[in-house]
């Protein structure tokens, strides 16, 4: 028999709603649905084959292709940079800038990654480039204290880019492996704040620009991810608050829109609550 477009459309509409209920953004669910429709329509299949099952497998295939993007493997890159530094007269610290919407978990994620780096034998310095939000400097400073690492700061109201400059100069002078730069939260729809972030990136010339977003975000994740990626450019993401009983579809939205890998996920508020992104786990949660 030939797969009828009307049958496919009806079944796909149901799958679309399921994807949305699993936290995939509506426009992304719709694109996945269209891709599957184009793949399957007009195909000839066995007389008794189950159309629904064919759609399920095709959707699964689409999701899997999105999720299976190759990770950057940041630890490996940092090790390579360190090896290059040790055999060179110049010291070039590995710089990571963290950016993202307000309250997504940037500061906490930086502390978790600093913890991981320290445990992996690397030296780390933190830069508090959030010179705007109340308590931002004290918050990162408390993490620095708990982790036994140095934090570079300036006063509230100072130019965020100037803190990056100081921190990198410090890292070069003291031969520190990694500089982690914390920035103020911002909605990507704010043109001035995107311009501020562009300046931070221009000054700090980071090896990695890491977008931090939380797994509870809805359809606006498409807009935020797009604007950060196009306006500033990102190399990877961290998806936080995955422990909050989420279905995980935000991972699909994030990777589909940015075409960049998710390096880590946040699964709680403590330093050890940082895991490598595992696409099988997300695939099962979204469509299992």
């Amino acid at each position, binding site marked *: 028999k030939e797969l009828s477009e009307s049958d496919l459309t009806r079944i796909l509409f149901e799958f679309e*709603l399921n994807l*949305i209920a*699993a936290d995939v953004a509506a426009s992304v669910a719709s694109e996945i649905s269209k891709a599957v429709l184009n793949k399957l329509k007009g195909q000839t299949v066995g007389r008794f084959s189950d159309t629904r099952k064919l759609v399920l497998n095709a959707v699964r295939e689409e999701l899997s292709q999105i999720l299976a993007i190759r990770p950057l493997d940041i630890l490996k890159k940092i090790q390579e940079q360190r090896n290059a530094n040790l055999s060179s007269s110049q010291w070039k610290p590995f710089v990571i800038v963290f950016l993202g919407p*307000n*309250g997504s978990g940037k500061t906490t994620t930086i502390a978790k990654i600093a913890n991981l780096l320290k445990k992996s034998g690397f030296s780390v310095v933190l830069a508090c480039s959030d010179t705007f939000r109340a308590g931002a400097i004290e918050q990162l400073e408390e993490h620095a204290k708990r982790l036994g690492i140095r934090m570079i700061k300036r006063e509230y109201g100072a130019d965020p880019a100037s803190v990056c400059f100081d921190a990198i100069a410090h890292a070069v002078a003291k031969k520190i492996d990694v500089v982690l730069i914390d920035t103020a939260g911002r909605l990507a729809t*704010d043109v001035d704040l995107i311009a501020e972030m562009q300046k931070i990136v221009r000054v700090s010339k980071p090896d990695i620009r890491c977008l931090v977003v939380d797994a*509870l975000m*809805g359809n*606006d994740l498409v807009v935020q991810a797009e604007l950060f990626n196009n306006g500033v450019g990102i190399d990877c993401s961290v998806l936080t608050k995955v422990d*909050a009983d989420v279905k995980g579809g935000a991972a699909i939205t994030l990777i589909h829109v940015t075409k960049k890998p998710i390096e880590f996920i946040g699964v709680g508020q403590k330093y050890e609550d940082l895991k490598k992104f595992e696409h099988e786990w997300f695939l099962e949660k979204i469509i299992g």
Partner: protein
Amino acid sequence: AIFQGLRKLFSKLRGRYIDEKELDNILKNLQRTLIESDVNVNLATSLAERIREKVLEAKIPTGVSIDTIVMRVLYEELVKFLGEKRYSLNIQPGKRNVIVLIGLQGSGKTTTAAKLAFWLKRRGLNVGLICADTYRPAAYDQLKQLAEQISVKFYGDQKERDPIKIIEKGLKELRNIDVIIVDTAGRHKEEKGLMKEMQEIVDKFKPNEVLLVIDGLIGQRAYDQAKAFKEAVGEIGGIIVTKLDGSARGGGALSAAVAAGAPIKFIGTGEHIEEFEPYDPPTFVCRILG
């Protein structure tokens, strides 16, 4: 303003006879619009179904055209859903009122505590802020700095690990205050210990208002989280939706309001203290309907 948006949706329904297929098409579009605005899928579906039932069973008086009936039913159902009036805070004059802010991690509670304090102060009330967040590093510093910015009394204790003890002491220390706003730690429904702690805070201090602060960018998970918060504290007096200065439509926050059985009372429209205003249903409805 709500009717303008709906009239566009229903311009196809002219004429006396209800074409069920046409009605289903319209309701499907409404459902899609709501879902694209982050409204919970089940909620959007049940709203569409309720409207369909009511329209089909409506007795249409002679001379009234079908599109008017559909409009009226939709308006009634949406208003139930989206709220039709501004609700004020449950604050009793002449007494000391306690407001407790609760919500998910990073939703904007601490910033909102200061915004609400400033808004009330502008209205001639004496306000105090208590930091009862004993988990987040520098939560004390954050609220203290905000309190200083708006010249409002502040109480906190960086050494005390028990939020109940902090609130007890704070209520004693902050004398001659009309409204005390208590900021609590962010939490979600899987963190059972934190949900229990929140329940204990509300049980012990019986606040005049428990306000759930919801991030305007939140998606499908808002409904279940809000439901769990409501079950833990018994009753939620109101919702404050934050970060509406962006492009998020706010359907998640709306779903949370439905789940919590609480009206939206204020919205946050930016990172600055004055970016805060009472909830206005028509504006929000237009936002949700795109």
